[in-house]
């Protein structure tokens, strides 16, 4: 059993209530931080812990906090990114739904560290029922004096509000989220200035993911040094992984970073192996935006080393033979999955979610969707494959925000590793007429056979 921090008390009945959460030691980190620590000491602990942003980018959280403009006379804001919309990712939803106070306590400690007096949780519109759970938890916290004026009898006061989105993946990008929080379209801003200098209402702002914020009280409880001992190298601590696709036990798991991918997929403690005992075909390790990996690169790196659930090991081999830990949205495909069809659904997703500001992304995502649609439906030509690669290349790096890259990587990597399958669709249109073409008769590539 790996060490559990975020989900340690997940099975305690009533853990969603303030009463039970406090019984299990909840808000002790907040009390310790606010009564006995200086804000900068908290930032120091977070730096020592090595905690990296859990939303996907993996940027060191303590460093992000230290960028906040302290000379500004404007109010500072902490904004929690609960816009979780990356296909394959549902860990934040689980945490907020089951232990809402872990996020509220994290908001309290983090806001105190940053000197914020008002903080917002921006949650995706579809999670309306989670919004209600959070609002209830916040109400409980106000009633108990854990939010509001003079918290723990000190002169620190904090208000926390939840803002609801309305259906837009792009609002998970931090500056688009801030635009949305200001009541505008979710168009990402040009950077610099970064939010730490000019964020919400042009004030110094830190935007952190739900899981990042919820990890902070644990760091305060056990100290940054102790937290840093969990994990491997620069991948410290525990991470929530949401696992889905063709596995026996889909769900959200907390792992110690450094667990092998093999154990995560096949052990009963986690995914419990592939459904129906079928062969594994592909893995997406960190949400739909990261490169897809074929069977022979999942549990081993190209060098033959064990692949670990860490930022470094998953990206071993770069984009040629590696991927990224990303958001921890872990999707497994077995031999009956059609990579072309799957890639087409992702292309459709990015086309739908492009905000339309930058032409390479606005136009390119639409072209990729169209080309993939025709290949999947048996109307493609061989030059379409290189056309896709070309479009992906021209989007990558040429947009204001990372949605462009995120749309290009899954397509480029699918072609890199599964080119034969794209060619098969083009050469055998009659075989792909039925939308479930590989569900009955798996497509076997030469690479797959070698596994």
């Amino acid at each position, binding site marked *: 059993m790996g060490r559990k921090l975020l989900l340690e008390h997940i099975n305690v009945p009533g853990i969603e209530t303030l009463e039970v959460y406090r019984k299990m030691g909840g808000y002790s980190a907040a009390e310790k931080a606010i009564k006995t620590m200086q804000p900068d000491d908290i930032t120091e602990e977070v730096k020592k812990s090595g905690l990296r942003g859990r939303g996907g980018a993996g940027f060191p959280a303590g460093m992000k906090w230290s960028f906040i403009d302290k000379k500004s006379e404007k109010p500072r804001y902490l904004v929690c990114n609960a816009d979780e919309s990356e296909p394959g990712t549902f860990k934040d939803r689980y945490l907020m739904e089951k232990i809402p106070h872990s996020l509220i306590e994290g908001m309290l400690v983090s806001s105190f560290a940053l000197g914020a007096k008002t903080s917002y949780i921006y949650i995706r519109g579809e999670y309306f029922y989670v919004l209600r759970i959070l609002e209830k938890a916040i109400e409980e916290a106000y009633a108990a004096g854990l939010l509001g004026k003079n918290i723990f009898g000190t002169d620190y006061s904090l208000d926390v*509000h939840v803002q609801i989105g309305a259906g837009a993946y792009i609002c998970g990008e931090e500056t688009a989220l801030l635009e949305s929080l200001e009541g505008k379209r979710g168009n990402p801003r040009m950077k610099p200035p970064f939010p730490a200098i000019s964020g919400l209402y042009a004030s110094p702002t830190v935007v952190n993911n739900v899981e990042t914020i919820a990890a902070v009280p644990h760091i305060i409880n056990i100290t940054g040094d102790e937290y840093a001992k969990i994990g491997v190298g620069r991948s410290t601590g525990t991470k929530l992984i949401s696992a889905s696709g063709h596995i026996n036990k889909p769900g959200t798991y907390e792992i110690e970073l450094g667990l092998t991918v093999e154990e995560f997929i096949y052990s009963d403690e986690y995914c419990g192996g592939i459904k129906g005992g079928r062969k594994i075909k592909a893995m997406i390790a960190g949400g739909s935006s990261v490169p897809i990996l074929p069977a022979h690169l999942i549990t081993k790196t190209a060098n033959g080393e064990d692949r670990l659930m860490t930022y470094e090991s998953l990206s071993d081999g770069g984009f040629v033979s590696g991927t990224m830990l990303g958001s921890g949205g872990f999707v497994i495909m077995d031999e009956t999955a059609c990579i072309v069809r799957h890639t087409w659904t992702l292309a459709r997703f990015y086309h739908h979610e492009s905000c339309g500001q930058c032409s390479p992304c606005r136009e390119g995502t639409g072209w990729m969707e169209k080309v993939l649609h025709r290949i999947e439906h048996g109307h493609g030509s061989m030059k379409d494959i290189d056309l896709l690669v070309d479009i992906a290349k021209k989007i990558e790096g040429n947009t204001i925000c990372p949605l462009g890259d995120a749309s290009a990587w899954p397509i480029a990597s699918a072609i890199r590793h599964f080119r034969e399958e794209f060619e098969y669709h083009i050469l055998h249109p009659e075989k792909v007429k039925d939308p479930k073409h590989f569900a009955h008769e798996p497509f076997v590539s030469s690479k797959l056979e070698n596994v």
Partner: protein
Amino acid sequence: MSKEIVFSAETLAVVNKLIKRYPEGRQKSALLPVLHVAQAEFDGWLSSDVMDYVASILEIKPIEVYEVASFYSMYNLKPVGKCLLEVCQTGPCMLNGADDLVAHFEKKLNIKVGETSEDGMFTLKTVECLGSCGTAPMLQCGADYHENLDETKADALIEKLRAENKRSRYC
């Protein structure tokens, strides 16, 4: 014929509470939540009259409301059926049978995606990832998630919604 576009006193109190969450002069920040409230209050969609009304409440220009309402996928700019069935179709749901589920609803309700059933009860819509990948396939109807669906569960859901005969709403 159409009812007058004014929030009830009760709703207005909710809206005013929402506005108070933001600093003075930043009432526009309440636009997204207020549009949800308006959509729920006025038959599940945002007509231009409703949007103009929201603009007047928040003291912003109507165009500021239109550009936001047209950006986000949860705002309906056309009338919808009483129950909006939003079936997720992205990667993980596709792997677990979302295509079959959509086809089943099309057949059962005798409509295509994007259409409303003749009795005005159901509108079928496909949506992108709802963060329910581990419980796929699934759909959202109002604030409720219906997960791990198969044809039997889908049929039971339709019957239940028909019997309840209530308008689904997010809030």
